[in-house]
Structures are given as structure tokens and as C-alpha cells.
């Protein structure tokens, strides 16, 4: 299938960038989740296992 450059430029580019930025936002949220995992681990270590 031939790639339609005009269609992409007018309609698809902005949507594609928005999708990619949404993914980058998800990565930021996943970073917070991972930090929380460490915090939970530290709390668990202090309260249950030591």
C-alpha cells in the first residue's frame, strides 16, 4: 500500500505524537509505581521481617 504523505501530514501526525506522549506519561506513572514498590519493601522489612 502506498504511503499517503498528505493524509499523514494533515491528520495523522498530531495523533501519532499525542499517542507517543501518552506512552511517555505512562512511563512516568510506572516510575512512581516502581518507587512505591521500593517504599513498600522498606516498610515491610521494618515491620514484619526484622
Amino acid at each position, binding site marked *: 500500500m*502506498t*504511503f499517503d*504523505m498528505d493524509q*499523514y*501530514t494533515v491528520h495523522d*501526525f498530531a495523533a*501519532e*505524537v499525542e499517542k*507517543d*506522549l501518552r*506512552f*511517555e*506519561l505512562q*512511563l*512516568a506513572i*510506572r*516510575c*512512581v*509505581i*516502581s*518507587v512505591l*514498590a*521500593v517504599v513498600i*519493601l*522498606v516498610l515491610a*522489612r521494618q515491620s514484619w*521481617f*526484622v
Partner: protein
Amino acid sequence: MGAEAIAATVGKWTLVVFVLMGAIPLAAATYQFLLIGIHRWRHHYDQAAPFFPRTAILIPAWNEEAVIGGSIDRLVGLEYPADRLRVFVVDDASTDATPDVVLAKAAEYPGRVVHLRRENGGQGKAHTLNHGLGIILQDGWMEALLIMDADVIYEPDSLRKMTRHLADPEVGSVTAYIKEGSRPNNWMQRFIGYEYITAQAAARRAQNVLGALACLAGGAQLHSRANLDSIGGRIDTSSLAEDTFTTINTQLAGNRCIFEGNAIVRAEEPDGIVGLWKQRLRWARGNVQVSLRFRSLWFRPSPEHRLGSASFAIFWFSIFMLPIFMILSSASLVILFFIDFPLSWATFQRLWIINALSFVFITTYALLIDTETSRTTWREGVMFPGLGSLLIILYTVFPKAFMWVVANGSSAVGVELTPLIVKSVIFTAYVWVAGCMLVAYLGKVAEARGWFRLLSPLFVYLGGYGPLLCACTFASYIYEMRGAEMKWDKTVKTGNVAA
């Protein structure tokens, strides 16, 4: 306090510092991973625009008959204007059917595929690239150049996702996220798949945030013509790390390098330790050469580029000097074991608390960054430091629970945990900080020795894939100190990358 006592105290605390230096690499990696969290707000998408420069794709090829035909088919099918894309294959004196396959594709796609031949090949990738580059630069058609490997597979939208950044004239080069793409993949390729999440999808996003990129992936480097002109129109041929040289020279010329993590490229990686070792030794020796050649850059901030920032240097040297940190840490623990055991034990625990928390954060986040790859590689992610280090991490995080299991387990098999046994285990753990590299290296030794090759994965899972790479970095120091010949050992490709 007498002079002798002061000297002893200073000596002990110096050893404590050396031990804790063993935590630098993981602490630096944690810092790097935290930066990814702000990539959403410090990125280059605001300057990106729909942009379709006339792009020449340059593929160095030596005996690539198994993969080159499929690669060309996929490249001409990319979601990119057909009249703005040409594929140039530089056949580096192949002795198989590579020229026939490329010529057949040139006939199938007239004007879009070009076969270039070097009759005297074997000098390495940089020479092959320069052969093609010299020809492509002779006329004014090319506005951007994509350098790739013969076996890699670009997702249909990946090239246009890269070129959109070249709309900003300050950007000289763009690279993509290379994923391990072998299907089916074996244990080694799963380790590499996980490693690439950390080393590419994660580390390069962090470098975007810093504004300094360490390396454009060899299989996916897009350059503007202006950038190629600014670096002299040639690829450096004096080292084994031509990709890194190009990356650094680009930034020194005042042009930005961007990592586009949403442009996906799949590559076939080695399926065994020997193949991995050859590839990584070449990369590691290249890094030694880069560290020395650009020694005036490190820790020297400049208004022209961000390569001299402290953060970038910390990232670079925490990897480059990893074996030194591990050996220094381990040796200092062993000395402290004999001269002040309580201090050694307290320091060891602090070292591993930092390492354990860093490991949990990095592994959790890495597995969440690329969930597609994680589905098949999460076990290798968990086992990345090796079973030995994983046990130390488990003890560090849950000491009482761990000791409860050990005590009950040993009494179940009739072994009494005497003080001698406990001290022996602790001594082994001290040695393990660096000894894990040796254990992982035994995997390479075993793989080359007949039936022992069956044991080689066990050594890597026990010693760790990370320590295996450390051993390779250590070997690179030795090769460079000996001034060993720079050989271009091509990684064997079979063409089993899933499109």
C-alpha cells in the same frame, strides 16, 4: 591516640569507602532510571514536525544471503514516500550469494535499490560504510542517511518517527529502540532482550533528559546531510566503536542527538556466550578507546554540548569502571574480614541494602517500561545479577525470614550451623562481590568445551548475566593494555527475527 592508631583508623575507613564504592554502579543506574520519569516533560516532540527528507539507507553487508533479501523487501515497504527512499547495499566482498540477492532486488525495485561492491573487503564496518558514504555524497539527492545492519527489521512507522525530529535543524542524528527480536529466542537472547530494555529504552531516554547521548545504535542511526558534512563526511575508522565516535563527534560539532524510543527496530542477537563475548568485547574495547580519546571531555561542562556534565560522566564511568568497583569492593571486604570483622559485616550490609533497593527499583521499572519484551524476559530480569547475588539481596531485604528458612533447611538435612560455617559463608559472600564475574566467565569457558557446553547456562544463571558483561569489560582493559589487534568479528545471523 598515637600515630599508629590514627593510621589504622584511617586505613579501615578508607577500606569502608572502597567497599561502598561497589554501590556506585547501581546507585548511578537508579539516578538514571529516575530521570526517565521526567522524560514526558523533557523531550523533543515539541520541535518535531511531519518531515520526509530524501533518505538513503546504507547497509553494510558481508555474507548476508540469509537476511538481506527480506530486509530490502521490508525497507521498500516502509510507511514513507517511495520516491524519497533509496536503499544502498555495500557488499563487502561477500563470498556467498549476497551480491546475487541484492542484484535481483535491484532489478525488482528499479531505481530504489543499489548494489555497491567492495572487492577488497574485511577491513571492518566503518570502512564499508565509508565506501557507500563516499558514493552517496557525490550527488545532492540525499538529505538524510540511515545507517543500519543487514538483519534488523524496522517497524513500518519507525523511519518516519525518526525523521520527524530532523525537522529541527539543531538535530543532527536520531536513533531508535533496538529490541532483541529472535523468535524463537533462547535463554541468552532473553537475557539480551531484558538488557536492551535497561540499556536502550531506559538509559537512552534518561540521556535525552540530560541532552547528551552516549551512543547511536549501530543498527539505527539517522543523520542529516548537514550533520554528515559537519563531521567530515566520514565514519571514524581508527577504533572498534565507530558508532560512539560518530555520536560524540556529532555533539561536539554542536548538533543534537535524539533517542526516539517509540521507533522500534528488531535485531537478531547472539544465541550463546561465545558469540556474545565476541560482540561485547568489541564494544567494550571501543569504549576504552572512546574514554581515552575523549579524555578532555569528561567532567568538563561546556556551553556547546552536554557531554561534559557530571551526570553524563557518572553514567559513562559507572559502566566503564564497573569491574574495578566490584574488585575493589570485594578485596576491601576481605581485608576488613581479617582486621575488623564487625566493621566488615556492618559495611557489607549497608552495601547490599543500597544494591538491593536499587535492584528492586530498576528491575520493577525496567519490566514495566517494555511490557511486550518483559512477558518473555522477566525471569532473566530477576536473574540478571545471578542466583548468588539474588540470595544476598533476599537476605538483605528479609534477614529474619531468610535465616529462618536457612536454619530450618539445614536442620532438616542434619547440618548444624556452627560459627565456622557461618563465617565461611560470610567470607564467600565477600569474595562473591567480584567472584561472580569469574563464575559467569566459566560459562564461556564451558561453552567452548564439548559436552560442558550444557553447563554454560548454569554458570551464567548462578554468576549472573550482568557480571558476565563485567568480566567482558575487564577483558577489554587487558586487550587494550596489550595493544591487541583490532579485529572485526562479525556476529553470525540466521535471519530468525520476527517481523
